[in-house]
């Protein structure tokens, strides 16, 4: 069994020290040591995407990322995106679209969708389906998740227009 060590991590903008097994994954540290449990353990194999978090702003699988590989880097979980405008827009459209069923995939789905919306000005349905294809959902058939992302993009662009008009 692996020995334990102290990891100095920067998570959701805060410095955290965690004493955990040397081979602990980021997902284990987040869930078991830091009680940040939005990220879920669906397969522990990097397939389902329920554990998706951001590492230096890039979506990664928490279950495939060693905690030790995250020192000196910025880890962001869904909890840390609570004030992020894109995430908030996605949360609102997911609530009304029907894209949330059992909810087990939802955290990871939101983190991935947020990255897509941040990177792509006006994603097509094909873009959205491709971007989310590493996040499995067994409940919805994806129709309403895709719709939620589309609606969030519209809402955000409307908000941007409103802001620009207000400034002018």
């Amino acid at each position: 069994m692996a020995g334990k060590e102290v990891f100095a991590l920067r998570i959701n903008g805060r410095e955290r020290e965690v004493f955990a097994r040397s081979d602990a994954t980021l997902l284990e540290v987040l869930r078991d040591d830091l009680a940040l449990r939005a990220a879920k353990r669906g397969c522990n194999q990097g397939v389902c995407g329920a554990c998706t978090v951001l590492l230096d702003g890039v979506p990664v699988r928490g279950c495939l990322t060693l905690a030790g590989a995250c020192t000196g880097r910025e880890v962001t979980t869904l909890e840390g995106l609570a004030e992020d405008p894109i995430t908030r827009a996605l949360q609102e459209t997911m609530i009304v679209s029907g894209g949330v069923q059992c909810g087990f995939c939802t955290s990871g789905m939101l983190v991935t969708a947020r990255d897509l919306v941040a990177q792509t000005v006006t994603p097509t349905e094909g873009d959205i389906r491709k971007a989310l294809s590493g996040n499995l959902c067994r409940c919805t058939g994806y129709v309403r998740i895709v719709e939620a992302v589309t609606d969030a993009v519209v809402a955000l662009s409307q908000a941007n227009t409103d802001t620009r008009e207000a400034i002018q």
Partner: protein
Amino acid sequence: MSTAFDIPAGTAVGKSTPKLENREKVTGRAEYIDDLYRPGMLHAAILGSPYPHARILSYDVSEALAAPGVVGVITGDDVPDGRMGAFIKDEHALAKGKVLYLGEPVAAIAAETLEQARAAVNLIIVDYEELPAVLSPEEGLAPDAPILHEKLKDYIKVFDAGSEGNLCSRTELTEGNVDAAWDRCAVIVEDEFETEPQAHVSLEPCGALAEVDAQGRVTLWSANQSVFRVQANVCESLQIPMSKLRSLTPRVGAGFGNKMEPHIQPITVALAMKTGRPVKCILTREEDFEIVRARHPFKIRMKTGADAQGRLIARDCEVLLDCGAFADDSPGVLGYALLMSGGPYRIPNQRARGKLVYTNKLRFGAYRGFGNPQVSFAGEQQIDEIAQKLGLDPIEIRRRNMLHEGDGWFVGPKIASNGLARCIDAVEAASGWRKGLQPPATPGTRRGKGIAVSAHISGLLGTGAIVRMLEDGTIALNTGATDIGQGSDTVLAQICAEALKLPVEMVSVASPDTDGSPYNWGTTASRVTYTTGRAVAGAAREVLRQAMEHASEMLDTPVEDLELREGGRIAVKGSNEDLPFAAISGRAHWAKGGPIVGHHTLVFDEPTHDPKRSIALGLPFPQIGVFSFGALIVDVEVDEVTGQTRVVEAWSAVDVGRAINPRLVEVQIEGGFVQGMGFALYEAMVWDGPRLVNPSLMDYKIPTSADTPHVHSIIVEDPEPNGPFGAKGAGEIGLNPVPAAIANALSAAIGGRARKVPMTPERVLNQLLEGGDAA
């Protein structure tokens, strides 16, 4: 029949209210079983059997007990000789005396950390005497087959199962005279079909957390579809009085059938009792594949005959089901599959027979559709074949034969509402069926459309509701129904709010708790909206009756001159004089009459079998349910080189009686379609001898967003007379016709007939190359 609740709908019912718990889910704050922790909690690991069939001779746990962090070990010697099971009580909490499938839990460890538990579990030594294994139903029925359950005859059974040897159960249903009817048929089609096992793959693996208090009473949280079935199973297997075990639920990460009957709860409770500490056991994804349950593989022989006009005259269906090592819900699946084997058609002569055989494999059990998708795959293709032989349009032959309101279903149950015709109309129009086929999107592909129709019950067994009016006139609803993500908490709150003309926000929904909730058989059989909804409407009606009596005294007006108004007010008819619920409830709490509480319970009690028209042997559900209907058209594209089949678009219409929450119904249709598409095209659990070789999401693929088409969901409403506001079930029917519709579309695209599910590229390519049947 009168409606269960006759107040016209408007306030809450029919609105796509977002699910009540959605905000907690989108912020990551929803707590599932693995998110729960208790002080001093231990973690569990399980030792699985290395053999598919063996006698357990002895255990040596000394080394495991001495390992770092280990607090307790249990083996079959630590659990009583109690057996659990919904239909046949054949299963111990943990293997005892024998192991019956490879991977079956034989021992479990509780340790301070999960790593310690997993490390120590391999230190348990079990001495086995290996026995010959039964790996298929045919092997199980052979005269000299090794017997799995030597005491099968002595097990408690809840119906006439006809169990013998490795035959777990048999069912036979007959109406009319099938053998004499073939002579009157102008067209007869006959064939054999096979379907492979499908895994549920709820995104959340199964898990449980148990603790024992100072009095020895157990509290058990688990991922489940019924806190009451959990309680019954744990108490039966561990021989605990039901009053000594409280079963609760956190949020559940979906079920589809695999969390209805027990998974890891009995073992977790046994560990907590052994150690005196809280114990959490969460299955790995691999264990979730290997030791819970899966959709039955079916072998089907079906024969259907029609006259020259395409009117169906006879159908004969024979099925053979692999039960796996334990009965679980299998006898129900067999009986239900046979009941549904004729489809939603008038067929005067029908016979359906089947056998369910124990094998040394993982148990097969409940899975969304419950045997219906398998028999529909055969039956709906035969309807198309007959249409083809007679030169009829596939939609036309279905219209000619479909059941109507007032007809009896096969063996007897009466159909009170039937929106099938409107479902067919809807998908025909939406899909452009009459305009013919779209041209192939790309060269090198072939394209075709196919249709299949379906019916499914909602109903079964007992349920209840308690509606309490709080001091301020708001409402606390408690039903005991587990919301597994589909939104039943929201739907039941809408029914309650509608009945009391309150905004939904004024209704709270209690989490199921066997200590405080009325009995609910479970979130299964597409039943919660229909049966629990009826109980909610009945309990709300009782609350209203009591409130009216108070108001009558307070307003000095006879009850018949009072009316319920929007916002929860009781008013004098034709007057502005009224009272809010708050004033009424305040009086009830503090002055007169006592707090207002309404409750209502029911058991679905309309008989399945009408002995005047049919013969039924070994029927597992004497009282089954009401019928929902659906029609599905798919447009598929086949790659001529690889045989890969892609669904381009799908149109699915479902008659749900009344959509209490239309968006949630749509998502049931869409999600059911995609789960059915995975089953139809590529999902299959594969055994190499006794070993499941693909128990991981790496090797067992489920549909992703990139693989799935846009699914057009269409709601049809033909109100069920005794449904709550006319509602009936929506949970399973969207899945049932998917393999059949895809097979019919494939046939239109490339010719031939698909006879096996999944319709893998290899099988489709063979079907295409041979211009005939798939291998």
